[in-house]
């Protein structure tokens, strides 16, 4: 993974929207119908990455702050890999405007590093399947479909 460490990512907006709360960060992938949350170390890593830190510098800063390696590098790499696989972040080729060291230090408010966990929720996917576009008629408009009783309806 060492060769990938200088890589920078950005949040996959506008397909992905996200908000940070006091207790967790929540992300919604508007394309896939899935939504996600993480807290603690995950929220810290996300914050650093979407503000322009490379994966390598995130690891370095975490190791410096929490002391020693303690599995920080593989935990961050695995977490970033998951974020990429879920299309929550995308790689960028040019180096972004980097957050200042002061900002980075202010974000390091955790007492200890815990392996980040990406919580995934899939219970909204059916809403995206409410009206799949099928054939169009001679006017160009899709046929109006009566709701399929097997498709989940909004309460």
């Amino acid at each position, binding site marked *: 993974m060492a060769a990938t460490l200088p890589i920078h990512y950005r949040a996959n907006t506008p397909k992905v929207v996200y908000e940070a*709360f*006091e207790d967790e960060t*929540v992300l919604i992938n508007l394309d896939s119908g899935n939504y996600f949350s993480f807290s603690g170390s995950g929220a810290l890593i996300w914050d650093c990455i979407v503000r322009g830190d490379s994966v390598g510098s995130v690891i370095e800063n975490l190791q410096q702050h929490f002391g020693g390696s303690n599995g920080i590098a593989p935990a961050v790499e695995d977490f970033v890999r998951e974020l990429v696989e879920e299309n929550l972040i995308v790689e960028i080729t040019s180096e972004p405007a980097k957050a200042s060291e002061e900002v980075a230090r202010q974000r390091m408010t955790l007492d200890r590093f815990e392996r980040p966990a990406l919580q995934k929720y899939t219970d909204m996917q059916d809403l995206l399947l409410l009206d799949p576009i099928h054939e169009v008629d001679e006017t*160009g408009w899709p046929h109006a479909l*009566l709701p399929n009783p097997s498709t989940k309806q909004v309460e």
Partner: protein
Amino acid sequence: MIGCFSGPKRPTAAQNIAGPADYFERVLAVAAAACECSEAVTKSIHIGGGKRATIHFCDSALENLLFPAVAHQELSEEKIETNFKILACDSAHSGIPMWSPPWTNQDYVSSGDIVRYNNEGFCAFFQLGILRLYDVNRRIGLWWTRDYTQLPLHERAAPFLILFHWCHALGGDSSFLIHAAAIGSEDRGAVLLAGRGGSGKSTTALASLLDDTWSYLADDYCVVRAGAERPTVHSLYCSAKLDAKTLAAFPALSRRVSLYEIGREPGGKIGFDLYRSFPESFRRELPLRAMVLPRVSKENNNEGQPRFTRVGSGAAARALAPSTLFQLPGVGANNFRMIAALTNRIPSFQLALGGEPALVPRFLQQFMQGLGRSMKPG
């Protein structure tokens, strides 16, 4: 019946259309022709958050299909100024053909948005056979379907939902539409009930109709206005879609609403006009005090008594934001930001529902009274 239009009867190919503004003008001309004939009907309503809309229906049959779900919001004053105009028509009854879509099948995204036809000035959405277009600057919404006799129950129970959503979310102020139920009272204020289908929010809201200490604002969708002062919640629709299980659980409710059915899904839910059944229970607006996330709990054997647990603002946003954003597309980031600000302002609680849904409003009332001054100031 064919309307008064005497123009061409064949569908019109959309050639040389220069983009969203051009297409909007063409569709607007069609809708205006349909809504200016002698059979057209005009109504003005409150749509929450201090906003008012004028709706032009191409004929009274379309009005009879869609207006009952917002009839409790009708403006009594004549010729009052409104913030938003909607023109609603079909082709089968107005006799006016619609312009063919200038986009391709591949331009529809899964939520119903239409790629290339959503920008800062215009919004476009097609789902369940209904086209909605919105001019953000002029605040004009267009609603068209081929044949209004084929409308799904969802549209009859929540007509113009996407247009109302755009009017609020893109209005430049602090009102926005959410997927949640809302009940309350003049002295306690209102509580939002949020959660996915089957969580018990609609059941709790419906149970409040049978408890005269509660007022009813919404079963499915409501408007929140979150300005500098305490946030308020506003009613939008007076309809509810109920399944056989819910009707069986509330026989008293079933008896009253069955007089005012507005439509049925084949083999599924039945839509009812709740306002005509319970006019005394409706409130147009109340201060918002808390959010409750109901959850049907098999483990809760506390003699049927519901159990409340405080949850963080992130958990509250997870219950409210995804179902809102997936149903009300086009302005996801902005809506999520407003929902996040709301969940940071009001306290949220998970409610583990006990065995008897009819008792929930009474326990919720006791809980709200107990909260008293301990709640965050708005």
